[in-house]
């Protein structure tokens, strides 16, 4: 295989792929800075004929709601990711130790949660009737804390990249289980932590459904829910206009450019987080994937 010959094809494929990712992004951005009337008259365009920053201006004026949603999302994501990493890695670590007696049974239990879900209603009942966390931030944090898939990835990482002799030696040196875990295992597992951390960050940040189900208090809406809500309400209002009450309903769909500007704002943190974690991200995936 001559690398010089295969390269152009790969380059073309990758270029097309990244274009496919970037173009919609560009379009969203352009609409967010386009003049509203121009968009209504001419439709979406990659280079609108008339620019305006009204959308962002409007968002800044209405900043209170968005900032609050932003901080809810940020708080939930930060707390969620930290706690989730701790819980997930603790569980995965226990499962990776051959001495652990319930290893098989617990792994099997985790497997079940990956294959089957309890269904929406039992899920809802657990949080509302048993834990009573509806309408609190806990309702946004708890449901995402642990995922079977993440536990399995971490377990594989621990089993394959941390030699059992290392644990033995630390224990010979007098470290207890917790000391071993915190001082030896965690520092060695930064790549997998970064990877799983990124997964959970994305899922916490993008989650709107738990807000929809559990949160009634407007002050606790997460940013993604605020966005989804705006869009869903718009489409629902059209249904109302069609089906129930058309003569005098004041149907106010939010302006196109404001919707897009909100999307731009929501992307922010993820775009910022990704480059910092990228180097670990790649390593984490490969390290976890190869079975030794």
């Amino acid at each position, binding site marked *: 295989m001559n690398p010089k010959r295969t390269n152009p094809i790969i380059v073309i494929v990758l270029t097309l792929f990244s274009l496919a990712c970037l173009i919609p992004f560009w379009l969203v951005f352009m609409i967010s800075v386009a003049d509203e009337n121009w968009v209504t008259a001419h439709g979406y365009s990659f280079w609108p004929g008339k620019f305006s920053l009204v959308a962002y201006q409007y968002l800044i004026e209405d900043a209170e709601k968005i900032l609050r949603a932003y901080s809810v999302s940020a708080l939930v994501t930060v707390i969620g990711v930290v706690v989730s990493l701790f819980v997930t890695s603790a569980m995965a670590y226990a499962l990776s130790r051959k001495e652990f007696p319930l290893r098989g049974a617990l792994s099997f239990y985790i497997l079940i949660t990956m294959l089957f879900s309890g269904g929406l209603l039992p899920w809802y009942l657990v949080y509302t009737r048993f834990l009573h966390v509806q309408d609190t931030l806990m309702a946004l944090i708890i449901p995402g804390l642990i995922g079977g898939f993440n536990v399995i990835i971490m377990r594989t990482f621990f089993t394959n990249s941390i030699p059992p002799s290392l644990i033995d030696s630390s224990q010979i040196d007098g470290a207890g289980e917790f000391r071993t875990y915190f001082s030896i295992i965690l520092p060695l597992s930064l790549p997998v932590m970064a990877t799983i951390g990124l997964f959970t960050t994305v899922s916490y940040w993008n989650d709107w459904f738990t807000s929809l189900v559990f949160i009634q208090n*407007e002050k606790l809406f997460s940013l993604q829910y605020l966005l989804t809500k705006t869009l869903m309400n718009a489409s629902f209002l059209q249904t109302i206009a069609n089906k129930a009450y058309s003569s*005098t309903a*004041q149907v106010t769909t939010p302006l196109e450019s404001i919707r897009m500007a909100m999307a731009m704002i929501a992307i922010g943190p993820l775009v910022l987080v990704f480059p910092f974690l990228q180097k670990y991200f790649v390593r984490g995936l490969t390290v976890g994937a190869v079975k030794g």
Partner: protein
Amino acid sequence: MKWLKKSSAVLASLMLTSAVAAGCGGNNASDTPAGSAQPDGAASSELKPYEVMMVFPDAPQKDNQLVQDAMNDYLKKTYPELNMTVKLNPIDWGAWSDKTNLMMASGDKMDLLFTADWLGFQQQVTKGGLLPLDDLLAKYGPDIEAVEKDYHEPAKRGGKLYGIHTHQELGGAQGVYLNKELVDKYNFDLTALKSGKVEDLEPMLKTVKENEPGITPLVAPSFPLEAYYSSTNLDSITSIAAINTVGTAPDDYTVINSFTTPRYMELAKLTNKWYKAGYINKDALTPGLDAWKKMQAGKGFAFVSDMDILADMEIGKADISPNGSIKAGREMLQIPLNIDRLQTGKMTATMYAISKSSEDPERAMKLLNLFYKDKELLTLFNFGIEGKHYVLKDGQIALPEGQTTDSVGYYHDIMWQLGNQMLNYTRVGEDPNKYKNYEKFNEKISSNRSRIFGFVFDPEPVKNELISIDNANKTFVDGLKSGQLDPEEVVPKMLEKQKTAGADKVIAEAQKQLDAWLKENSKK
């Protein structure tokens, strides 16, 4: 072999766990409401204080709590004998279906619940989530009966009433909106539209197309085939099943496929012709497109839609549209081409029901009844607290000085959801006679009943067919109504697909149920 053994063990235990899980879920759902309802129901005769929980779709209002407190003060002062408070629980439109389904399935306490055929009324009844209301209504709903007595039939399922219709306009009118500026400029003759035929719009569209580049003559996404065809020609039953009311005898109850009438073909061809001539905007099917916004931007001349209700509306009579002009930000003419007959579907489009999880259905009904007679209570719910959320200007609702709809803390337009709408104030800018117009308009509509008013189709026997027909339609219907597809070629294809999907079975079932209903009501 080892693998096989292992996996069968996995399978067995999985089945076990899922069975256990399913069992738990089921028990929870069915036990809780019954269990919690009984003790309180027994105690209600002593009329201990009760909080009626109202669940309805609305954007969250900042001052919800304040208005709720004001309503409770008022209830306490005016109706102390009811010993009742109210809890307003608005749920956002976008979250409505998910959330109410969960609340209903898990037996969360709800008393009064807004519902409609387009919000899953049928399923709520089938699942047993709603209480039959006949007895409650007879005992505690005299003021509801005073205005809605004749209109309960459509909300009955299996002979029992499950929803109470909001007292409001009984139908609508459809027609064309025209940009008045252009009508005046070209001096269009509007008398041609007296025929009620959308075809007569064509010469105007042509003129606009030729002389006004940059202006779309007929703005989508509202089309004749959608807003105009079925209301003028059909008494719809379900999906494709309908009765053709044009050119048939008044006692003709033959159920047909609504896509097979000659008129459908005529209108589809017309739309296709207009599309080809460039009268209709090319992006008609882009989701989220709003015709009013095009009008606002000054990029449109006409479109087909529902009309403002005016007292003396007549087919073909051009009037200034009060709300249309506000929405478009310029003077708009409206010309009705059809005025609805009294239809079953409209009566189930806005209702309140009482949930099975209600702990005191009697008081829920008493509260609902108050909304049909007590203007003050209804005003509190619709407009908030006087002086804080609204002020009265010449008998109309206005925002307090210096406030906007966003800043005032309680502003919503859901008058159409609850109670007797005729008791409501109008807002400044609206026709002060709006509700008087409604009453006049209602006389017109209720005197012109649909042939099958009161007949409710039970979709259960043909549920799967209805879904496949929906899917078959999806490929074609949008293209036809926007004029992008050639009907000569596509309509036969669509009918073929519908047939494969079970169209004949649906029509036969509709005919069977309709015949049974006619016999019961001795119409035949």
